[in-house]
């Protein structure tokens, strides 16, 4: 019997962590002489109070769903892929190349092609560390993080020397042709009579992200590969006994992970910027780690955690805009949430487990 009921594990513990993070954040805001309650209201208002706010929150959340899922699938195979940043960077390159290669007549054709482009490039960027880990025993954490830097350098080179339109001083590609532009939530909801903010960047990629959550859940818990992947993640010696080849699982999980991270680019590159710029990933690869930790590597948990982080991003931007709370402090608040929900998980989990143990024991005692 597990110590805690499932709802406590997946809901109660993260919520308590979150409340702790908020309390500390409130103290920090108090310390610089601002009103934490007003700040919270502003964050909620700015990110959830309007379709404009929602449009941004969901836009950020879409990024975090992809990178969070990427980290999660690797987690299940006990691989710590912290190269989501680099894989998403390369995914952006893949999406851009697809979008610029052909004069796409319609987004419905451009989107699947761009998805393939992003996934292949992202997967390829994960493939090298995965191969090194499977065949040479190189530590996946070290190699993937190094590949983030190489990825950034590759993108830099490509933008400056290859993809930059002649005459432009900006290290960015040309604008993608209109046939690649994805429908935004505004356009998608209009036929249903729902008016959604026109200027918010959320687009059809959000639905792709939802679909990815479902497919990944299916893959992990309903397929043979998922079974083998989880078995390998729990016990490598057990997997070898069962005839599961480690190389297959390491490569498979990392390729899927890289592909998911690369898929993020359809949201940022194709959906929002409509061209490839430097640093289009903006740290989402790293946020994905926190999202996966907080979501306990479950696609549904990842979705919820991603929306929470979307809220923090958008709410943080609003704070910076409307108050004297400096931009850096927003990063501090985001950092606190990551710290409490990810790194300090056990700090909350252990006392909660103790409470449940005591409750159960007193119940049992009454029953006997």
């Amino acid at each position, binding site marked *: 019997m*597990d110590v805690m009921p499932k709802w406590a594990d997946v809901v109660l513990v993260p919520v308590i962590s979150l409340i702790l993070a908020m309390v500390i954040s409130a103290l920090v805001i108090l310390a610089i002489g601002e009103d934490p309650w007003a700040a919270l209201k502003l964050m909620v208002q700015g990110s959830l109070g309007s379709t404009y706010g929602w449009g941004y929150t969901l836009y950020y959340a879409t990024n975090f769903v992809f990178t969070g899922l990427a980290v999660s699938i690797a987690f299940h195979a006990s691989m710590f892929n912290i190269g989501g940043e680099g894989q998403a960077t390369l995914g952006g390159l893949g999406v851009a190349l697809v979008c610029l290669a052909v004069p796409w007549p319609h987004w419905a054709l451009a989107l699947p092609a761009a998805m393939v482009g992003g996934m292949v490039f992202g997967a390829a960027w994960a493939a090298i560390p995965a191969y090194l880990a499977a065949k040479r025993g190189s530590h996946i954490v070290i190699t993937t993080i190094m590949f983030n830097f190489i990825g950034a350098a590759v993108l830099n080179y490509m933008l400056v020397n290859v993809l930059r339109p002649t005459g432009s001083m900006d290290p960015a590609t040309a604008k993608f042709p209109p046939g690649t532009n994805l429908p935004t939530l505004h356009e998608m909801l209009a036929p249903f009579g729902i008016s959604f903010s026109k200027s918010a960047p959320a687009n059809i990629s959000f639905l792709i992200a939802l679909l990815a959550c479902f497919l990944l859940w299916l893959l992990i818990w309903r397929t*043979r590969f998922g079974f083998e992947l989880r*078995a390998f993640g729990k016990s490598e*010696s057990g997997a*070898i006994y069962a*005839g599961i080849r480690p190389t297959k699982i390491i490569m498979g999980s990392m390729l899927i992970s890289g592909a998911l991270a690369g898929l993020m680019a359809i949201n940022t590159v194709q959906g929002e910027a409509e061209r490839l710029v430097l640093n289009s990933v903006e740290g989402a690869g790293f946020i994905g780690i926190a999202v996966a930790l907080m979501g306990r590597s479950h696609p549904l948990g990842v979705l919820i955690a991603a929306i929470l982080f979307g809220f923090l991003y958008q709410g943080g931007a609003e704070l910076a805009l409307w108050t004297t709370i400096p931009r850096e402090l927003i990063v501090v608040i985001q950092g606190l949430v990551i710290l409490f929900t990810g790194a300090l998980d056990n700090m909350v989990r252990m006392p909660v487990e103790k409470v449940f143990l005591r409750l159960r024991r007193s119940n049992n005692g009454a029953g006997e």
Partner: protein
Amino acid sequence: MKDMAGTADQPSGAPPNAPAAIELRGISKAFGPVQANKDITLKVAKGAIHGIIGENGAGKSTLMSILYGFYKADSGEILINGQPTEIPDSQAAIAAGIGMVFQHFKLVENFSVLENVVLGAEDGALLKPSLSKARKQLTQIAEEYEMNVDPDALIEDIGVGMQQRVEILKSLYRHADILILDEPTGVLTPAEADHLFRILRGLRDEGKTIILITHKLREIMEVTDTVSVMRRGEMTATVKTAETSPEQLAELMVGRKVLLRVDKKPAHPGATVLKVEDLRVVDEDKVERLRGISFEVRAGEILGIAGVAGNGQSEVLQVLGGITTATGSVQINGNEIDLTGKHSDGRSRRERGIAHVPEDRQRQGLIMDFAAWENMAFGYQWDPDYNHGLLMDNAGLKRETEGKMERFDVRPPHGHLAAKNFSGGNQQKIVLAREIERNPDLLLVGQPTRGVDIGAIEFIHQRIIELRDAGKAILLVSVELEEIMGMSDRIAVMFDGRIMGERLPAETNEGELGLLMAGITNDSGANEGAA
């Protein structure tokens, strides 16, 4: 917790006037819903060897962990030499004069004996004075108790029996008066075990108190003065060893009479199923673990491989199970199988009709975090029966698991529980249910009853013999001589990567097998020194 002292009517071996070395009063400890210790009351007299015997999961190790400060009891009191003592951690236990020798030694492999003894008990920042002081004391203690060890030998270079002596020396160096040994003979040859018992008797005669935790009745009878029996977290009886019998203890342990002998009809061996020739394994450190062994197993017979752990038996199972690569030749039903690992693995072995109950069910045979129904498909997840196209047939698996759990008497019969929530014996039954119900041509079984309680041992043995009687070939590896002698139709003894000889169980005895296990054959005398 109410005082249950009234139930502690067992007379211990202590003289009535002296305070007991250890007295436990009403100790209880629960892990979640599992009550590991229930109101335990125990007195151990000074200068006695006290045995604690019980099935796996009976709560012996938990009780000792409480005594050594690893766990805190939910309620109850510990008295050391009559003084109520709080033991919040192992430091306090050591201060109270308690020493513990764990089943798995806690030694630093690349440190010398001396360094291991001093580790954690250094006098200051500089090592030199501590080491030279320790060397003097160590020599003294070693002489006193006839425990000869070379203080400068590295742990990795000495045998397990010697390593155990180092563990004991560690405790004595820390001035332990009470020594707890947890399953100390699990890794020893019969001769090494006898030596250990001599040391324990010597320690007792010097006034030390010894608690011996074991599930081996023979050891209890041989070395202890008093013995306590634990069952399901409770102390069911404490008796003088001289006044009891193995049968009575076994009955007290499981609460009913058990067959200690395996009940089986003579074998009717058929065609050769497994033929192994010149099998060699070289491990990562370039050490030859198997030095060219050959044997056969025929349909309808059990070949038992006896030997002290680490003499190549594990490698035999791992090669045949597709886990380790090897050179040589292995044939199944006349067909050669690939040993290089390039075209074969655990899965291709299973497809050839080899089922494998591994020695280590927790690290290999099961995924501890997986539900029982998932574990029932573990290793066979590719089977079309378990899959509907792209997806696995989870519902069908769960249904099938119910039947398997019922037929193999897995308790509790809840397929959704994770494997880690079952006791050792029930975990083993899950593995056996999975492997035996595949109806394999060859069943590889490693340590089928290690850490399994007596009631389940009988059941597991019967199932394996049923499979034999159904005309299947069985290769049994066990470090329990009694099990090998009881189960096998033929016995091969391994030592240092070689088969020292084959015997028929009716024509041999534990003494002869013990000599073979130590590498000594009747005609050649001492063969080779133990590695």
